[in-house]
């Protein structure tokens, strides 16, 4: 909260003199008492807003307020020294309070249905935010303007440079511009009448009108910029220097901030549609712009135009004639990463919390209100016509990950799927439905961010992606291997309009039936059988699995570490770390002696150090935004962490827990690489899959020098999304998530080949017998859709790739061909090699949308031929009897991502193991790549 002692900072020197004069010359200025009744309401799109019920003032006249709940909330205009008594009635189902600078501490929120009173004196001049602590980013914010008793407001700068003092009575208009997420929420005050202008409005004034802007912010940093106008920076009178500080950009920072200034519309520059925007580049890229239209005098001059409103044309919205707004909260909550603000009401129909429906011309609005991470809001799919002609917002994307939100107006009917490039299984979808046509419009053809154009929506790829969306975004649609019930995926039971192969509209197709016919329903899940049950050898040591979605009682954030004993195939321990609210634990590595486990929190900015023996936390340090993978140098033992949300690999020196330096993954001023799952070569090169720049980066681990950055992928060069690297004896394998391929390089970064994992797949035709056939003529039918982790075994002979689409592919490094495919679960994600008792290796494979670990034996007979690779067994990741530091309450065992077998048997590390961890390993395992 803003400091409560900011005093008289909001007036200019002349205003101060004016005030002083008034105080000196007159004692007729008396403080007023305001009695205000407010309520908190739920708006039709699920957002929350404050509503003015009544306002009486001992001074008499009070403003004319909107008769509905509005965002921003009603603006409270008072004067310095006034007393304000507020009674807040909460008509929402969450607790709502009011935080106001200067309010005595301890004021409590009103419970749902309850009332709470707040009383305070307006002791600090200026424009201040008031807001709820908790739901503030959903719309519970407003402005309180405390003016000087004599009404003097901020002076303005004339076109000729003179600085003119103004009284509030001389203002033609006032605007509220609240900067929230990546959206302006506006209101206008003219002659005491307050009018909501909603999102990204056109503010309008007649040239030479004197208008006051009140710019406020909440949670995220913003810089307000208005084209062609300049104004006075605010300086406390006692701190006033000899020259004015004239600015045209103002930073708003901290928990909440406010700034106000006065301009004479168009002075020195004339009429025009002047751009008004946040100058934070990522916010510009996510749609944070409004307009200030300065009109020549005329009949309809100076009329502002409201933007998309929560009351407008969305599914079930009350006012279908105004552009509407659907709102998604960006969240760390599994499945609900883009959660509709009204998902409780919609989910019974849509069968997911991440789907919204609105009319053409309405806007999709995102706000990062429930996440500790940085994200992008990126279109993965859009109707093919949406990026044609004079359209500037589709495809929708930002150059780097950031904090804020997004607003995008969608005019073309059809299906839009949004994702986050950093966390590419976060999905939110908007169907823009033309109300005059039959069925929900999915569009006839879609474009994909990978560069695929005009894909018919009847194609297997289109419906497969749609099915993936419904599986990924709904917890109830995940595979629970602890249950005997068949796997059932809920789809919305609605008619849709799609396009056939010729681009013709097919109306009124039952979506549920189409998806069930194509991909089955009520599928019996395989019974769990451990390797022991199957007569396969035990593993060596433990496997630590990041069950990233598992929810426990003592945390708001999801995720645990599941520790598996490979001697017994029993869960040894669950580690949730409620004391630090461990948030989406993603990937791990171990110290040289295996005594400390390093854990990244991917939806946060922390690296956590955990005692291997007892699961206790050792330290938890800030490392960078969205740290993804962690790995040590086999030589120095220094820890390296890929900072997926940023542009570097950070080093933590061996034996310490404090990051000391970073290796930038690109030259200064270049687009950030956003590295994800890096690996380190035996000679100490760091190799990063650079998701944002579509290349594999090779860096000198000692000097940090960029050696080379060869391109990744080849099927869809528009956005291959390299995501994980595996390193063998002399080759590097990069898995390209959206390119469905593996890029192969030598250790100097020279490309060797690209392995196409989709070679046997027909994406275009409707699902049928030929969707998967041996098209490349290698005698095998294999497919790897959305490959992720892709380690090479310690001997350098086989690559095991976890493909999100639900398969495991094996590549023989002597030929760089796929030699085997094994089934996997939805969201198949993590894989790493651990020692198999008696020699050889197991590859342990985890899946996000199931709760079992698959143990792959890539070479059961040890003959070096991997065509006979098999699943040695499967192990439940849920176990309510396991030792834990926090009780599991839901999503038991779900969210398998990072996998770390202990002891670490990779070449370069295995040689460094202490004696106690070497026992149990064979001679070959101790020297895997001689």
């Amino acid at each position, binding site marked *: 909260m803003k400091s409560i002692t900011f005093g008289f900072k909001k007036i200019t020197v002349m205003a101060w003199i004016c005030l002083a004069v008034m105080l000196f010359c007159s004692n007729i200025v008396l403080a007023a008492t305001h009695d205000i009744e407010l309520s908190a309401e739920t708006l039709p799109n699920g957002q929350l807003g404050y509503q003015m019920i009544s306002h009486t003032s001992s001074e008499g006249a009070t403003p004319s307020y909107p008769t509905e709940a509005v965002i921003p909330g009603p603006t409270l205009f008072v004067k310095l020294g006034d007393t304000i008594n507020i009674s807040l009635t909460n008509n929402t189902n969450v607790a709502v309070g009011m935080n106001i600078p200067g309010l005595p501490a301890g004021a409590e929120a009103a419970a749902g249905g309850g009332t709470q009173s707040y009383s305070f004196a307006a002791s600090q001049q200026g424009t201040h935010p008031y807001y709820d602590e908790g739901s503030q980013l959903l719309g519970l914010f407003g402005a309180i303007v405390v003016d000087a008793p004599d009404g003097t407001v901020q002076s303005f700068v004339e*076109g000729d440079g003179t600085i*003119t003092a103004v009284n509030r009575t001389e203002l033609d208009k006032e605007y509220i511009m609240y900067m929230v997420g990546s959206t302006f929420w506006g209101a206008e005050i003219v002659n005491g009448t307050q009018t909501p202008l909603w999102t990204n409005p056109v503010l309008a004034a007649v040239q030479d009108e004197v208008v006051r802007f009140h710019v406020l912010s909440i949670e995220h940093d913003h810089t307000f910029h208005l084209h062609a106008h300049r104004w006075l920076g605010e300086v406390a009178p006692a701190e006033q220097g000899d020259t004015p500080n004239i600015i045209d950009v103002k930073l708003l920072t901290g928990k909440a901030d406010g700034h106000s200034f006065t301009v004479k519309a168009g002075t020195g520059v004339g009429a025009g549609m002047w751009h008004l925007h946040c100058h*934070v580049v990522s916010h510009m890229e996510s749609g944070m712009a409004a307009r200030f239209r300065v009109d020549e005098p005329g009949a309809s001059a100076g009329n502002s135009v409201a933007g998309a409103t929560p009351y407008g044309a969305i599914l079930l919205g009350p006012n279908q004639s105004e552009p509407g707004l659907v709102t998604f909260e960006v969240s760390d909550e599994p499945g609900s990463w883009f959660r509709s603000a009204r998902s409780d009401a919609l989910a019974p129909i849509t069968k997911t919390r991440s789907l919204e429906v609105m009319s053409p011309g309405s806007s999709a609005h995102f706000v990062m209100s429930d996440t500790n991470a940085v994200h992008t809001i990126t279109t993965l799919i859009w109707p093919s016509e949406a990026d044609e002609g004079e359209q500037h917002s589709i495809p929708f994307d930002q150059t780097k990950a950031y904090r804020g939100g997004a607003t995008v107006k969608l005019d073309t009917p059809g299906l839009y799927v949004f994702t986050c490039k950093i966390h590419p299984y976060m999905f939110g979808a908007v169907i823009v439905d033309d109300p005059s046509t039959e069925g929900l419009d999915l569009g006839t053809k879609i474009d994909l961010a990978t560069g695929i154009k005009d894909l018919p929506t009847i194609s297997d790829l289109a419906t497969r992606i749609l099915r993936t969306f419904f599986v990924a975004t709904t917890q109830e649609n995940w595979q629970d291997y602890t249950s005997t019930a068949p796997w059932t995926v809920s789809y919305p039971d609605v008619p849709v309009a799609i396009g056939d192969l010729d681009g013709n509209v097919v109306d009124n197709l039952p979506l549920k039936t189409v998806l069930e016919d194509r991909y089955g329903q009520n599928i019996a899940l395989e019974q769990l059988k451990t390797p022991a049950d199957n007569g396969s050898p035990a593993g060596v040591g433990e496997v630590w699995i990041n069950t990233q979605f598992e929810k426990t009682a003592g945390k708001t954030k999801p995720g645990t570490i599941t520790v598996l004993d490979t001697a017994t195939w029993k869960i040894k321990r669950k580690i949730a770390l409620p004391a630090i609210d461990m948030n989406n634990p993603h990937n791990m590595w171990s110290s040289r002696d295996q005594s400390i486990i390093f854990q990244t929190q991917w939806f946060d900015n922390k690296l956590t150090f955990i005692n291997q023996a007892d699961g206790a936390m050792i330290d938890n340090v800030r490392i960078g935004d969205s740290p993804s993978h962690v790995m040590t140098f086999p030589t120095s033992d220094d820890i390296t962490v890929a900072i997926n949300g940023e542009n*570097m690999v950070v080093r933590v020196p061996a034996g310490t827990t404090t990051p000391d330096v970073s290796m930038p993954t690109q030259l*200064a*001023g270049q687009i950030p690489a956003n590295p994800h799952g890096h690996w380190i070569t035996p000679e100490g090169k760091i190799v990063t899959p650079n998701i944002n720049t579509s290349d594999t980066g090779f860096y000198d681990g000692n000097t940090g020098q960029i050696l080379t950055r060869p391109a990744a992928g080849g099927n869809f060069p528009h956005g291959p999304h390299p995501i994980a690297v595996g390193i063998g004896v002399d080759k590097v394998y990069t898995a390209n998530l959206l390119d469905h391929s593996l890029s192969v390089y030598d250790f100097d970064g020279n490309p060797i080949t690209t392995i196409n994992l989709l070679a046997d797949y027909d994406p275009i035709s409707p699902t049928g017998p030929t969707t998967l056939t041996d098209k490349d003529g290698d005698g095998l039918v294999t497919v790897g859709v959305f490959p992720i982790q892709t380690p090479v075994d310690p001997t350098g002979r086989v690559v095991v790739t976890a493909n999100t689409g639900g398969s495991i592919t094996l590549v023989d490094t002597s030929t760089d061909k796929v030699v085997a495919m094994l089934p996997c679960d939805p969201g198949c994600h993590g894989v790493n090699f651990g020692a198999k008792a008696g020699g050889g290796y197991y590859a342990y494979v985890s899946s996000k949308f199931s709760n079992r670990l698959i143990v792959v034996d890539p070479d059961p007979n040890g003959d070096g031929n991997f065509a006979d690779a098999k699943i040695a067994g499967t192990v439940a990741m849920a176990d309510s009897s396991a030792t834990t530091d926090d009780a599991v309450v839901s999503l038991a065992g779900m969210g398998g991502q990072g996998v770390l077998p202990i002891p670490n048997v990779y070449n370069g590390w295995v040689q460094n193991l202490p004696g106690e961890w070497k026992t149990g390993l064979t001679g070959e395992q101790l020297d895997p790549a001689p």
Partner: protein
Amino acid sequence: MKNINFSCTSPTSDECLKLTVRKKGSAKQSMLPLLVFALPFFIFATTGFAQSVGQLHQIELWAEKIPAGAEGGSERFAYQMNSHVISDMDGSNETDATARYVTAPTIPGPTIVINEGDEVEITLRHVFDPGDSATLDQVSVHVHGVHYDILSDGTIEYINLVQDESATPTMSYTYRWTAAPGTAGTWAYHDHNMITLNGAEDRGLYGALIVNGAAETVALDQGGQLVTVPLSSINKEYVMFMVDDAFFGMEIDNQTGQQTPLLDNPALAAQQGSNVRFHLVALGTVTHNFALPGYSWIDPGTNLIISEKIIGPLEQYVFAVQANRNTQYMDTAFSSSLLGMKGDFNVIP
């Protein structure tokens, strides 16, 4: 409404000094409101116009592409000064200032130094091959701070509703700026039209415009004392853009007017005892926390002496110091520190 003009025509005039004293404010002085309001209005408002006879700057600026080098990664873009001719408003008394600049595209772009009262006619040429990428067809210059009409906004028609105000591979575009009274300061100029509807400013297309106030003075902190020195006593200007991962600098020698690009996180050098001025502009997504340990300066617009400053994207921040000890300039924000976003400030005895 009441008027007052802050721009004193002469720093030594008695009226200006009186005004300065009065602004400090005390109960006694505030008893004289009419005098305070009226005097400046009548005395300065008229003289303010008299000084607006400035010079005309005719500039041709090029927008170029800087391809990725051996280190790979994304290409960058940059402005290059092609010509800069200064004349009287009627075109007489031409001086060619082009030799001040390097003959290559630089990040930041050329620093355009003018005086309050001057006008600028700046023609932008799109001189690189956009290849088959339509998103690289348009490039513009949008300037902060000074006056211009809607045709010189440097935005696309989608925003300004008039026309695309861009240079293209086949057409140049001319922007007209007026450094009217009240626009003194350091302002960014940057692209607003390439790649996206918001432009590609963070790909390298940015530079600074310095508008020196008529007979401007500069406030310096000398051992905790606030000292006012004439602008002519500033030996060097350091234009330092704070982008998301580095400082990109441009140095100007005020004796010669010569500009030297300093690239990223440069080592700065100044003579012991000389006065140097920093022009900081943030650009990108990150909020920076600037510090220059061992030094403090006057916070613009105030009488405060401070030693660090939070600066958000496209905020500009100008201060001067007297070089008297070696130190480092730096951004102390978390990620910036890890990235090594800092450089030496060396004082040469």
